[in-house]
């Protein structure tokens, strides 16, 4: 939201919203998609229906023609604030210049998209699922809004609806030449008895799209260049107080506070609030709260990570990979053992990756106000939402979900970290203690790193089996690590035709806090798979693109990305002296193949990445330039993690604390160019936020192999590790 001091819609109950609305609201859909349209003009029927149904309110029309379209997804830089309303506007036939966008209320029954289970609904901005899961929802809701306008015009003109059409922001009766702008229809809005659901037909033919696929600037960018875009950490409310927590060096360690009286005597300190794993302090100012945090004298209990040393665990993981006891099956195709027995040549390698941290630029924070009687709460937060869009606060306070209002704010980065609500619950505890004063909880960067939730460390053992004819017949992949899907995602090969495949997960557990991190297991797994394929290519004397070309023969969309990237990167022309190119393919919803060109400073071990080329098939692309931005950002975040980032734990404690010792990619490290070609498609849109990041490690390692003949198999590829490999 822009910091204009206006009240966000979520602040008002739906009924009050309707009363206070100057224009006309089109309420569309019971249960999200089915029609149940009510006009503001008919308040009795409206209120009756509001009581009866879960109503969906997607759009507000003013008499001057302005539309407000509600975005149900979090905006964390991926562009949902534009892409979803744009899809709606396309089907509504709206004039995009007359559209304003606001966040929808956080009410899943109304604004959810199909969840992970059939028949469920979800508001959860994760897994690159936003455009993919909302595309049909927004199209149908937009088409229903258009239908209402046409129905109203038909009534107004007394002509059959079938004789009407729409142009941008107007309804047209061709036969009489009459036209009426959407805004002018507001006084005449009439609600039909029922609405088409537009499930199978009645939507635009994609070739008639006016908005989807064109270069539409993102709606929220102007507010992000003048400082007015509001993040939760920017909230300032009357009587607001500030909370901070001191957490242990070991995840889950229990505190005993030694000097509570001293802390309470400090200037500005209002309250000390104990948690199982932390001590909270509330003060009148942020600086007073932070001073008190520093003054806390706490003794800590032991906790499960005690004794865990992250860089030593690989030895244990190697043993687990060799264990006779089979792990959990992730994927099984054909007969891997037969392929391994019959192999003429076998390639085996272990790949490793250290823990990495989200490092979203806005440290975790929330603002919560609990009513004096404890029966209502308001939350201002940057959240990727969740299965519970009220983020656990109703349970914490023992009040019903409808008594909690979530005011979603822009996210200063998500990357998976804001898909859990630990920080929201922490703030809820403080807000309950301080009710009715609003409390702003701020994690320092040190809190954010040392009590972080990390992408798991893994070891992966891959074995490729090649038969006497030189054909890749078997591919086995054992993932060792903590976190289930967090380590196993992306280990399947659905676009490589390898007849015998086996993926297993060997579980380990260390009490370290783990979380989805952009692309999740795809980062480490695609690295291992793509690097293994180049081992095979080199061993068999086959070009890496040619090997993949053969493997993708039955997957034409994947193959097209390979062919396109080979073309734009001029793959067949050798790189200049001292440079080499490497390739990697990734499926993460969308399909992408990337090529990079690198050089290596053999005295420092520094890898320089000069250029990137990507070819992508994402189905229908709503905002092409934004997809390119996601490719660029995904590549740079990938380069950051692959070349620099590393969390280590010694005796269970995180060794890094801030950006001085957790290095991110900086501007001096960027390549000269990142070129993306989007392949045309009319297929359903697929997510793009996590397709580029997992390309990076494999492509760089493969370029390094071509350049030096050596293998990089342990992420990150720090200069020290590169030197070690070069000197091996």
């Amino acid at each position, binding site marked *: 939201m822009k*910091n204009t001091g206006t009240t966000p819609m979520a602040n008002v109950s739906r009924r009050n919203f309707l009363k206070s609305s100057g224009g006309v609201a089109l309420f569309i859909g019971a249960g999200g998609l089915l029609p149940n349209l009510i006009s503001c003009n008919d308040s009795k029927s409206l209120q009756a229906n509001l009581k009866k149904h879960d109503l969906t309110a997607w759009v507000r029309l003013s008499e001057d023609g302005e539309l407000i379209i509600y975005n149900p997804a979090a905006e*964390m*830089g*991926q562009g949902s604030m534009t892409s979803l309303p744009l899809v709606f506007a396309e089907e509504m036939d709206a004039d995009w210049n007359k559209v304003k966008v606001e966040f929808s209320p956080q009410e899943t029954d109304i604004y959810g998209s199909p969840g992970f289970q059939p028949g469920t609904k979800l508001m959860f901005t994760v897994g690159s699922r936003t455009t993919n899961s909302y595309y049909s929802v927004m199209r149908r809701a937009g088409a229903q809004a258009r239908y209402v306008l046409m129905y109203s015009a038909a009534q107004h003109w007394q002509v059959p609806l079938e004789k009407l059409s729409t142009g941008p922001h107007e309804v047209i009766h061709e036969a009489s030449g009459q036209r009426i702008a959407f805004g002018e229809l507001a006084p005449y809005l009439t609600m039909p008895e029922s609405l088409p659901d537009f499930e199978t037909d009645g939507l635009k033919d994609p070739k008639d799209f006016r908005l989807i696929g064109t270069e539409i*600037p*993102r709606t*929220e*960018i*102007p*507010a*992000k*260049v*003048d*400082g*007015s*875009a*509001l*993040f939760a*950490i*920017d909230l*300032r409310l009357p009587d607001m107080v*500030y909370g901070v927590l001191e957490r242990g060096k070991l995840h889950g360690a229990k505190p005993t506070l030694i000097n509570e009286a001293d802390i309470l005597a400090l*200037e*500005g300190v209002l309250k000390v609030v104990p948690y199982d794993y932390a001590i909270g302090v509330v003060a009148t*100012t*942020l*600086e*007073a709260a932070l001073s008190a945090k520093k003054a806390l004298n706490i003794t800590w209990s032991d906790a499960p990570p005690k004794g865990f040393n992250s860089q030593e665990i690989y030895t244990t993981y190697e043993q687990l990979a060799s264990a006779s006891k089979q792990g959990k099956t992730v994927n099984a195709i054909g007969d891997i053992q037969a392929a391994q027995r019959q192999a003429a040549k076998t390639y085996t390698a272990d790949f490793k990756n250290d823990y990495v941290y989200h*490092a*979203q*630029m*806005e440290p975790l924070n929330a603002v919560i106000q609990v009513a004096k009687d404890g029966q209502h709460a308001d939350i201002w937060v940057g959240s990727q939402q969740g299965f519970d869009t009220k983020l656990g606060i109703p349970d914490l306070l023992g009040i019903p979900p409808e008594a909690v209002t979530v005011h979603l704010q*822009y*996210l*200063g*980065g*998500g990357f998976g970290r804001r898909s859990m609500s630990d920080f929201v619950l922490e703030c809820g505890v403080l807000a309950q203690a301080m009710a009715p004063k609003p409390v702003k909880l*701020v994690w*320092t*960067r*040190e809190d954010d790193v040392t009590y972080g939730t990390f992408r798991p460390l893994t070891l992966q053992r891959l074995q490729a089996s090649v038969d006497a004819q030189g054909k890749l017949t078997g591919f086995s992949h054992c993932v060792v690590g903590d976190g289930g899907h967090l380590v196993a995602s992306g280990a399947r090969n659905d676009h490589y035709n390898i007849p015998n495949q086996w993926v297993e997960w060997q579980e380990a557990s260390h009490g370290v806090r783990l979380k989805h991190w952009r692309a999740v297991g795809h980062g480490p797994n695609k690295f291992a798979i793509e690097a293994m394929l180049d081992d095979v290519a080199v061993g068999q004397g086959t070009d890496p693109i040619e090997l993949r070309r053969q493997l993708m023969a039955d997957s034409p969309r994947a193959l097209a990305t390979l062919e396109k990237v080979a073309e734009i990167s001029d793959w067949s022309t050798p790189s200049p002296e001292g440079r080499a190119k490497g390739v990697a393919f990734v499926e993460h919803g969308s399909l992408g193949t990337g090529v990079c060109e690198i050089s290596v400073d053999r005295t420092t071990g520094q890898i320089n990445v000069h250029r990137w080329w990507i070819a992508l098939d994402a189905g229908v692309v709503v905002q092409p*330039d*934004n997809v390119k*931005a996601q490719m*660029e*950002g995904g590549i*740079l*975040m990938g380069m*950051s993690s692959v070349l620099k980032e590393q969390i280590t734990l010694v005796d269970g404690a995180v060794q890094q604390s*801030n*950006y*001085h010792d957790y290095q*991110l*990619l*900086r*501007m*001096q490290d*960027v390549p000269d*160019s*990142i070129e993306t070609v989007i392949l045309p498609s009319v297929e359903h849109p697929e997510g793009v936020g996590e397709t580029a990041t997992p390309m990076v490690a494999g492509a760089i390692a493969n370029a390094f192999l071509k350049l030096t003949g050596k293998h990089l198999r342990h992420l990150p590829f720090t200069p020290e590790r590169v030197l070690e490999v070069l000197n091996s």
Partner: protein
Amino acid sequence: MAQYTLNINNQDHEVDVAEGTSLLWVLREHLGLTGTKYGCGIAQCGSCTIHLDGAPVRACVLQVDHVANGQKMKTIEGLSESGNHPLQQAWIETQAPQCGYCQSGQLMQAAALLEQNPSPSRGEIKSYMNGILCRCGTYMRIIEAIELASETTTQNA
């Protein structure tokens, strides 16, 4: 607690805060100039970059006591009258921001660069901007935007 007078965006502001308070908290929490962001608190990320007498500085490591002696400060809110500084326009033209959180710092650092060096080379841009982190990976477009603003302003000069 002590009284300080701060000159920010050509306006004097009186604040009553504890001695030694970080300028960043004064700007954000006491004065409501929240365009300047908190990212690390140790001058490593640059999200809190403002101008102090024309030079880019990290507000998080400046104490209020040291900037209350008539120094002139400029924050993102004062970069232009209506969000139309050539850099802001170029940022929109190139669709540079993603999450947007670091962008105030990026813009203030870039503005200081162009004031010193209206036509920086790509190498000079990378070097001058190196202290400002972006996690979303918008660096490519930031470089493009600075080059665009540089072209626009030098052509108009």
